[in-house]
């Protein structure tokens, strides 16, 4: 492939993505300077949810497969860490490997079965699989059942995770690696075919390609990315429970993607940032206006979601690119 052309495609999006990544890399310097270590924790959570949303976006945004059960893979990733630690295996790299393997196999089985259906049926069958896994972990009493289990931070050897900054940069590195991998995937032949399937599946088939194979592969990759996010999430939270795979969490991932912008690389990360700003800001705002209702911030968040769906097509990334296009046309560049 023409490397130069590859790097040039979607350069705006890459600027945004690497801008955000640089921001996250420098953020701990700011928090150390301003003495706000709590915000490092928030930033880690944002990066992890952004990572999971990026994984989901590969099939949801680029592939057009509305999977309503991806939180299950995040949960599986987390339980891979939790259960191995339960049996005394505390090596973080082993957890990650296990999580990649389990999520890969599970992604293969689930997508192979689920992709027999399409449309509303696909949304529902992915939800059904996620619910099955959710109730499976609720029923596993020895791993805490409904209440979940406390775990220690995994041992990543080079990274001593009891130093919170090392955990921060471990998560950051994972995010960077996944971003670069996704960048390559999206612009590779595979990514082009995946988008073409989203556009018109029968045409792709007429070209002699098997859409199912591409869709299953995309699903597996996205499941594995969510698994990595989950495994790191377990170390961050030092606690695993079925709540992480509740169906509303899958909804949350979808909100993050649509807030940021479907089928964009930076969108999910941007969406995760905005999601958490809203989550932090709305209670504060309500506290100013009506202090007794501060904890009911969802009553504003729900309508915001509806408005985003109704009026903000393309999410924040769409807004950014429209803004950029207008600025360019103001300067008489590019028609």
């Amino acid at each position, binding site marked *: 492939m023409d490397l130069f052309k590859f790097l040039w495609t979607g350069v705006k999006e890459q600027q945004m993505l690497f801008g955000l990544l640089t921001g996250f890399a420098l953020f701990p310097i700011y928090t150390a300077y301003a003495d706000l270590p709590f915000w490092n924790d928030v930033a880690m959570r944002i990066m992890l949810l952004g990572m999971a949303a990026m994984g989901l976006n590969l099939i949801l945004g680029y592939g057009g497969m509305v999977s309503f059960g991806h939180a299950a893979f995040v949960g599986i990733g987390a339980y891979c860490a939790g259960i191995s630690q339960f049996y005394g295996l505390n090596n973080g790299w082993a957890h990650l490997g296990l999580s990649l393997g389990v999520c890969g196999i599970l992604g293969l089985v689930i997508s192979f079965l689920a992709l*027999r259906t399409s449309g509303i049926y696909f949304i529902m069958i992915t939800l059904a699989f996620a619910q099955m896994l959710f109730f499976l972990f609720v029923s596993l*009493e020895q791993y805490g059942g409904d209440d979940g289990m406390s775990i220690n931070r995994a041992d990543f050897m080079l990274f001593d995770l009891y130093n919170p900054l090392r955990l921060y940069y471990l998560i950051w590195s994972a995010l960077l690696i996944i971003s670069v991998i996704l960048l390559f995937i999206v612009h590779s032949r595979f990514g082009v075919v995946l988008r073409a399937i989203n556009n018109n599946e029968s045409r792709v088939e007429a070209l002699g390609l098997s859409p199912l194979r591409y869709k299953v592969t995309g699903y597996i990759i996205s499941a594995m990315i969510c698994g990595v996010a989950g495994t790191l999430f377990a170390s961050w939270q030092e606690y695993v429970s079925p709540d992480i795979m509740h169906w509303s969490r899958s909804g949350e991932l979808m909100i993050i993607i*649509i807030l940021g912008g479907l089928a964009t690389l930076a969108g999910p990360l941007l969406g995760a940032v905005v999601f958490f700003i809203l989550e932090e800001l709305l209670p504060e705002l309500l506290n100013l206006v009506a202090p007794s209702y501060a904890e009911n911030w969802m009553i504003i968040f*729900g309508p915001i979601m509806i408005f985003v*769906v109704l009026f903000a097509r393309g999410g924040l990334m769409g807004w950014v690119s429209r803004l950029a296009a207008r600025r360019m046309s103001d300067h008489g560049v590019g028609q």
Partner: protein
Amino acid sequence: MTFTLLLEQIFNGLQSGVTLFLIAAGLTLILGVMNFVFLAHGAQVMIGAYAAASLISITGNFYVAALAAIPITFLCGYVLEYLLIRHLYQRDHMDQVLATFGLILFFNELIRIGFGPAALFSNLPPSLSGFVYILPDSPYPVYRLLVIGVGLVCAAGIYYLVTRTKIGAMVRAGASNESMAAALGVNIRLLRRFIFSAGACFAGIAGIMLGPLTAVEPGMGEPLLILSLVVIIIGGLGSVHGAFIAAVVVGIVDTLGRVVLPLLLRSVMEQSAADGAGPALASMMVYLLMTVVLVFKPTGLFPAKG
């Protein structure tokens, strides 16, 4: 297991099945006829339950409150369709999922602000809190029998409406080919609004009847919503009789599973673990059933679109 226990559980399963059917009947038409993913249908159940519970405390009469709550739920559906839902029909499924997910958050929080986070419990009037003997030695609560009866009457009513009336013919025409129905002079916009409000109303009736049986609390509708989605998918989108069969099957499988599975598990593990794992595994069974159906019949058992 004794025969009486089994019979009692089958009745409980039937009761939860007809309740599920009331929720699923409207939703299957919303999904099937309008091709609209409506996740806030559980909120309609919650609205029905809260309307009935607050009317009971105002009027003090269960029957009056239950009957008065029905038009309220119909009106809620009508207003919701007019204000928001009609703007979403042309959107893709992803947008519909997210907008109606936002609605769930909104309604749950609204109820939490209005009625507080704690669960409401409403007492049954003395005339409904007794038992009847379905067999000489097995008493069964009157109220649950009433729920089964009302559910079956509603099911018969829906069946009559869909198969024997002009509106029903339009609904079926819309389910099998909407643009053709529109070309033949069916007012699709009005039809959609009617289906939506009627669906909200039936979900509301389910909520009203569930009030005295379960905890009436914010978020009570979501587990029911997910279960009724399972029912709809098994029965086939847009098929009311498919939804009825699937609802009864899901209700009985779910209820029997909760009783039978812990008993089976007890023979392989100790009792406390079995009692904990049984209900969760029983909840899995329903999804397993749906997956098996979808793998062999990807459009459900009785799809309306042929």
